[in-house]
């Protein structure tokens, strides 16, 4: 009954989406407010019905109703409750349902909080949202119905893939989808602007918060996924340049570029046509990501054998939306008015540079991800493009960007003073040189790469702080004045400081982890001691114990440093009987920002167990950086000037800065 209700709710949502796709557009054409306002009600009703459908699927999973195929294949009555819930989106059908739920959520948010939007713009935006929604409802209903029943219900389910039975599944996919799908809003705004043939700075002010919101979630989602892979897969890697990861990185890069170009558009009414293109590209890359992941088309150990109908269907959606929006762009973009002028050395120029490098870096990831696929289609040759390719292309493009990051905020709009900015960055440069010298001395002339890269990161962080010091007048004014200025500083300026510093922090983590990671891989018997990075790890023994739906072998390690006992670590290996598979549960010991990491391998006949022990210095910074970036985004989002509905402020921001 619940399954049928859920299915029916989804069909109703499709019907609503079809109405929302057409009626408001006609209303806008005929200038009929009543018809345009239909979009608002249908968007909210759609959210209600999709939420009901999703709730139905959650209920089926929670109550372990194995007469539903989706529950039977992905659940087990003994599975802990949290994984019964998260298992809802731990499979193809359920995750697509989550996708449309989030799409409907964003549509509903625009409907609920878009009261200050011009009526026809809101109608167009919601109509475009409904086009996307209709396509994906159809996709779910035709190829991936999560509510299918089995004629003779089995007594027990086949359990969820054990690797997914982790708290990471509760957080990572919803976050990632909030990011991916959130970019649909800027896409809809872009298409609506093209349809209306009108775009202005106000448009950018409406789009920016939505883009920022999506970007925050995508940043956190990617970081969370990376940390999950790090602790769950048992060999300590945190980024693999796997196509599925690239699929999430590409929209992030394009979205980051979009955030910055939207600033130019809002503040200076320039780069309009480019911003529209970026909005379209960002969501197109999100759709591409959905296609890559959902169709199983890539030569990836990720890809799972799915029937080709799904792949073809998503490919069709992809072609229609990307092709359609780009055609519309080619046709209408010339109708948009030219923006303001600016000199190459200016804040605008710096943001253009940022866009240039981000989109180029994004393009290299795109090529590396899709080239193997294209080659296979054309010649039949199979190749794999892995980390070496991306290290040789992505990294060199990111370095100049990092050098440029501290300069951007210090340049004035319209016409900047590069020399002046450089003078103000002298302190940051000195901090970077000191860091390089100290590290160089400390590593006794080892590889020059790591000290230089960390020096660059220090430059980025110090540059962000310089920006803050300049704006508050710290060191130049009495402390009380600086504090008062700091309080008065717009939150978006604080956001910039945190986000830029976050980039530097992440870089330090990445460089430290890859350069000074130490590892011990070998076999150990009880009472054996392994030495790594000054730590002593003693294997005390191995014990067996049972979990709710698995058995596990736990190894007890005692960790000591300089003969003093620090802590215990208990890595384990779990065997899940239903799926006849095993997972490795790594044990982590955090010391500052560094971590000790133990994971287990196979047990040999003589009782020795294979172990992998890593010491990963500063590894936590890799994820702390993105958290800082997201926090910066959040601060910026809370800036009242950016909040939807806030009236356009008088031109005051310059007055808050130090007079120069």
């Amino acid at each position, binding site marked *: 009954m619940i399954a049928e209700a859920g299915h029916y709710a989804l069909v109703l949502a499709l019907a609503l989406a079809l109405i929302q796709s057409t009626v408001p557009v006609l209303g806008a054409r005929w200038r009929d407010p009543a018809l345009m306002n239909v979009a608002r009600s249908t968007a909210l009703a759609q959210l209600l019905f999709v939420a009901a459908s999703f709730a139905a699927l959650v209920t089926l999973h929670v109550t372990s109703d194995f007469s539903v195929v989706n529950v039977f294949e992905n659940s087990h009555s003994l599975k802990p409750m949290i994984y019964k819930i998260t298992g809802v989106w731990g499979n193809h059908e359920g995750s697509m349902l989550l996708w449309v739920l989030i799409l409907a959520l964003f549509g509903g948010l625009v409907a609920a909080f878009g009261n200050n939007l011009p009526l026809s713009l809101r109608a167009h935006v919601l109509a475009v949202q409904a086009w996307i929604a209709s396509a994906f409802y159809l996709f779910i209903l035709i190829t991936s119905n999560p509510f299918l029943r089995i004629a003779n219900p089995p007594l027990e389910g086949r359990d969820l893939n054990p690797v997914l039975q982790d708290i990471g599944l509760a957080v*990572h996919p919803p976050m990632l989808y909030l990011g991916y799908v959130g970019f649909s809003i800027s896409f809809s705004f872009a298409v609506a602007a093209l349809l209306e043939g009108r775009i202005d700075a106000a448009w950018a002010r409406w789009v920016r918060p939505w883009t920022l919101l999506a970007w925050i979630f995508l940043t956190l989602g990617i970081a969370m996924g990376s940390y999950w892979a790090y602790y769950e897969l048992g060999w300590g890697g945190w980024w693999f340049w796997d196509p599925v990861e690239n699929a999430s990185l590409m929209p992030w890069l394009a979205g980051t570029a979009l955030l910055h170009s939207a600033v130019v558009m809002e503040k200076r009414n320039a780069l309009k046509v480019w911003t529209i293109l970026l909005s379209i590209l960002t969501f197109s890359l999100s759709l591409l990501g959905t296609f890559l992941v959902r169709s199983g088309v890539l*030569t990836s150990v990720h890809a799972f054998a799915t029937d080709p109908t799904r792949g073809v269907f998503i490919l069709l959606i992809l072609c229609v939306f990307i092709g359609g929006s780009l055609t519309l762009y080619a046709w209408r973009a010339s109708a948009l008015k030219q923006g303001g002028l600016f000199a190459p050395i200016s804040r605008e120029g710096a943001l253009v540079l940022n866009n240039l490098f981000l989109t180029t870096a994004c393009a290299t990831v795109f090529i590396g991800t899709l080239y193997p696929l294209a080659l296979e289609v054309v010649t039949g040759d199979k190749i794999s493009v892995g980390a070496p390719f991306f290290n040789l292309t992505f990294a*060199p493009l990111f370095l100049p960007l990092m050098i440029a990051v501290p300069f951007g905020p210090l340049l004035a709009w319209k016409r900047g003073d590069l020399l002046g900015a450089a003078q103000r960055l002298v302190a940051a440069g000195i901090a970077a040189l000191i860091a390089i010298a100290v590290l160089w001395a400390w590593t006794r002339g080892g590889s020059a790469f790591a000290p230089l890269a960390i020096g660059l990161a220090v430059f980025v962080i110090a540059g962000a702080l310089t920006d803050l010091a300049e704006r508050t007048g710290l060191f130049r004014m009495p402390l009380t004045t600086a504090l008062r200025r700091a309080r008065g500083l717009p939150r978006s300026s604080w956001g910039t400081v945190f986000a830029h510093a976050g980039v530097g922090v992440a870089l330090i983590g990445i460089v430290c982890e890859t350069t000074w990671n130490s590892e011990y891989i070998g076999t150990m018997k009880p009472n054996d001691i392994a030495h790594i990075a000054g730590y002593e790890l003693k294997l005390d023994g191995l014990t067996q114990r049972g979990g709710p739906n698995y058995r596990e072998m736990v190894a007890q390690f005692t960790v000591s440093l300089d003969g003093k006992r620090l802590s215990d670590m208990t890595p384990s290996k779990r065997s899940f009987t239903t799926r006849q598979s095993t997972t490795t549960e790594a044990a982590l010991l955090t010391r500052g920002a560094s971590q000790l990491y133990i994971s287990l391998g196979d047990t040999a006949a003589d009782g020795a167990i294979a172990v992998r022990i890593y010491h990963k210095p500063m590894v936590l910074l890799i994820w702390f950086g993105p958290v800082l970036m997201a926090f910066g985004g959040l601060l910026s989002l809370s800036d009242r000037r950016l909040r939807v509905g806030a009236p356009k402020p008088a031109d005051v921001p310059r007055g808050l800065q130090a007079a120069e």
Partner: protein
Amino acid sequence: MTRRQRRLTLIGGSLAVLAVAVALVLNAMRDSIVFFSTPSAVAEKHITAGRRFRLGGLVERGSLVHGDNLAVTFKVGDGTATLPVAYKGILPDLFREGQGVVAEGALDPSGVFRADIVLAKHDETYMPKDVADALKKQGHWKDDYGAKPDYGKTAGAARAAQGVPLVQGASQ
């Protein structure tokens, strides 16, 4: 500067960055791309020792031998030919005899494939795409490798959906 000069500066700058990117990509394409091969293709083509490639196939039953210090040897076959593989390190959780595997490394002069990365398929319904395609091409595809339950839907290794990367064993 006039509008025209400014625009030219912008376009010039963009083209310069793009040219650098293209150079980087072409350079990386030459050096860091790894081809995929099967044991029978290796036998036919005489790949030179030391050239890196990915080897895919099924782990031959009864061929897995554990040596000292985590050294393992096993044979990878595709029904026509087999190739001995040597690896040092911890094999992935899902590595099993009779099932699909992809190993990355190079042949040594004696004709043994020295792998430094071993990837295993990651649940009972999934086989690496390379391996499945190669086996299909050679007519060794057995339906039960990709067996679908008769109610029509595949059970997916849904981790792919969540962006958690491959199951991998790597040794340094």
